[in-house]
């Protein structure tokens, strides 16, 4: 899959908007991080679940990740996705800790496996929204 299937681009608000705007502005993955204790978290929350601090920022993440889980979808009620079936959706565990969902760009259904190293790459869809691709990488699984 090289182009992302069409979808109704959401108009997020509150912290979800801050998250996506941070990603879009920088053009690389950003994730919320606690300014007090450094814990990364996603989706964004007003208080840190580790230390209860309300002081946070959205910091650049490396994009390095592993496949935590995935699904191969053979059926969709949406024609644009049905046309791509079977499509691979990945739960990526970032090296910083948080997990997010991404669509596999160059990882076929018969190759995807839990633990395999991937790279998370955003693609801007509006000033307030981006989607994430999961791309295969060379090398060991850290």
């Amino acid at each position, binding site marked *: 899959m090289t182009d992302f*299937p069409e*979808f109704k*681009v*959401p108009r*997020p608000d509150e912290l*979800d908007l801050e998250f*996506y705007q941070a990603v879009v502005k920088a053009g690389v993955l950003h994730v919320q991080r606690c300014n007090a204790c450094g814990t990364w*978290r*996603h*989706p964004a*929350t007003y208080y840190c*679940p580790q230390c209860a601090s309300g002081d946070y920022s959205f910091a650049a993440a490396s994009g390095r990740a592993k496949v*935590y*889980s*995935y*699904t*191969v*979808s*053979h*059926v*969709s*009620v*949406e024609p644009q*996705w049905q046309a*791509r079936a079977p*499509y691979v*959706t990945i*739960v990526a565990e970032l090296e910083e800790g*948080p*997990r*997010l*969902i*991404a*669509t596999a760009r160059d990882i076929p259904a018969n190759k995807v496996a*839990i633990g395999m190293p991937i790279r998370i790459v955003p693609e801007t869809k509006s000033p307030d929204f981006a*989607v994430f691709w999961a791309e295969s990488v060379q090398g060991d699984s850290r």
Partner: protein
Amino acid sequence: MAATGSSFSGKAAIVGIGETGYMRGTDQSILQMILAASMTAINDAGLKPSDVDAVIPPPGFVAWDEIAAHLGIPDVRYTSCPQMGGASPTAGLTTAAMAIAMGLAEVVLLPIGWNGYSALRPRPDARPNRRRFSAAFFDVVKNYYAPYGLRSAPWWYSLYLQRYVKEYNVPPEAAGAVALACRAHAQLNDKAMMRGKPLTMDDYLASPYITEPLRKLDCCVETDCAAAVIVTSAERAKDLPHVPVTILGGAEGHPNRPDELINRKDVLDLGLHLAAPRAFKMAGVTPADMDFLQVYDCFTYVVLLELEALGYAKRGEAAGFVKDGNIQLGGKFPLNTHGGLMSQGHCWGMNHIVEATRQLRHDAGPAQVKDCELGLVTGYGDLGDGSIAILARGAR
């Protein structure tokens, strides 16, 4: 039995049940179906609408005030609504028992229903619902899941169920055993949508994938239906027509974090893992004491996780529990003796409570678990909420 002194254990009982048919396609609105099921439950309890003094409404679609207005309930002393999707009806039993034990209410109506087939499918003749549910996870879905072709429950849950399957080598036959038990029990139930459509393991294994690991036959059926129960005090239950079904224990539990599916320390920890021990402790009984299990079966693999949460198997080992007919009638722990959401119909688990009540009244027809005295009901709500009620035949 009522184990913990200050709890509601043993103080409230289910005394009335009602349900509509389970259909694909109806001319009735959700409100009409809910009112019909409610009136049936009130009549079944030997009561009148004016006896009802509390309403625990569904977590969406229909509101408590219109239910009270249309049924002619003159004095609603208490209303409250657990907002947890499919975990709501069973959690509602706890809320009802609590309100009764504290003297806030005496006769509680708990209805639920929907046009799960007619309204929610993308169909030209769909009748959109007037009201939806209130939960933050809808925003999570909109902002983080739906753009990726993950539009509804099978696609969301495949994300963690695939990890369950891969991490523990769960064979498809384990999920198939759940589908087969529900389907076998539906053959005994006049109201089951899948009556007359028996299922074999070969049929199950030939079922096409929707989104891995979920096959079509791992998913419950979209249904138009409603069901309701009446809960009252143990005292008042003595004077009513049916053997009371006493609420011995009840609890809810929620994953951390509750609004999102994949950023949990262990994605396989459901709310039920927290709720089940609380409920068994309150009831003063153990999982081994149960005569039947009415387990919320939105998806077969979720049932396997729930059985582990209830204590019937260790993490990853539910496959061993469901094999060899153990969960079929005649086995040690018959599961979903009405056919469940998988094969009777999807009524948010209120149909599980109705069936548990029938069983403990010894009024379950050909699906009767002989001489049953104790059973449990679970609920599962998006995204992982758990609820459980432990029920007993007669006063305790």
